[in-house]
């Protein structure tokens, strides 16, 4: 995973109403050594700018589940995060293989994770439904042979 800061974040973690912190993370398929690092950094920044613990937790969980899915199920992809004063907006895009039946994949308990992935603690089939639960706005689109896109918006109360 590599990360780039962009946008107008000046390194000072006090935000005024017009600031936005933009982050971009490149997620490599099968790279379990840094898996979760993106979500961890997002959470740390949210804590530093004073987002409520309960909200930061929801954002971190949604980001983590999305990040792990890219690493486990896809050929790799990236996660873009925009942290605004009133909300966090997360977009995750991968390079395939895509999901044939999105409705089925969204069902609790549905997983195609093989045994060696289950042995690592994944494959409950709860990641996608939990992303939806953690978000105020959630969308998923997927095309077989192309890739999967997920967007999560979480408001900061």
């Amino acid at each position, binding site marked *: 995973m590599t990360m780039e800061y962009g946008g107008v974040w000046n390194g000072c973690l006090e935000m005024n109403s017009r600031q936005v912190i933009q982050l971009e993370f490149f997620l490599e398929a099968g790279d379990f050594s840094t898996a*979760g690092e993106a979500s961890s950094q997002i959470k740390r920044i949210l804590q530093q700018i004073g987002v409520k613990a309960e909200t930061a937790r929801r954002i971190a969980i949604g980001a983590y589940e999305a990040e792990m899915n890219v690493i486990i199920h896809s050929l790799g992809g990236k996660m873009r995060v925009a942290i605004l004063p009133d909300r966090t907006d997360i977009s995750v895009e991968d390079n395939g293989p895509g999901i044939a039946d999105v409705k089925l994949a969204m069902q609790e*308990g549905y997983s195609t994770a093989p045994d060696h992935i289950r042995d690592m603690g*994944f494959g*409950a089939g*709860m990641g996608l439904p*939990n992303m939806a639960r953690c978000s105020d706005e959630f969308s998923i689109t997927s095309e077989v042979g192309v890739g999967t896109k997920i967007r999560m918006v979480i408001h900061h109360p």
Partner: protein
Amino acid sequence: MLKLAEVNALLCTEVLCGQENMEREIVTACGADLMSDVLVYTKEKTLLLTGLTNIQVVRTAEVGDLMGIIFVRGKRPGPEVIEMAKAKSIPLMLTELSMFDACGILHDYGIRGCVERVPRNEL
């Protein structure tokens, strides 16, 4: 409600890191080997008991704001797992008890699961 120090006494744990956080209090606990189940059902002030010892367990505790992790059946995580938990202030403990007995003892002392019931799946 129990302090981690009390949990340690009840389960005869070895503290692997986070000795300075043993005053933390827990009200619920979760015994699981599938981490996204943990992230769905836990709330804050929860202790995780698990038979998994990889780095993702620490990640799960971090994103889920868990109070600490107990490895059951004497399973010892590698040094890189302990290092990461230290960096993230997540206490790690190890007990020789089975998952069932460790959870049972905590239940006897008033600790409950994070969810009472999950509606049955009608797939």
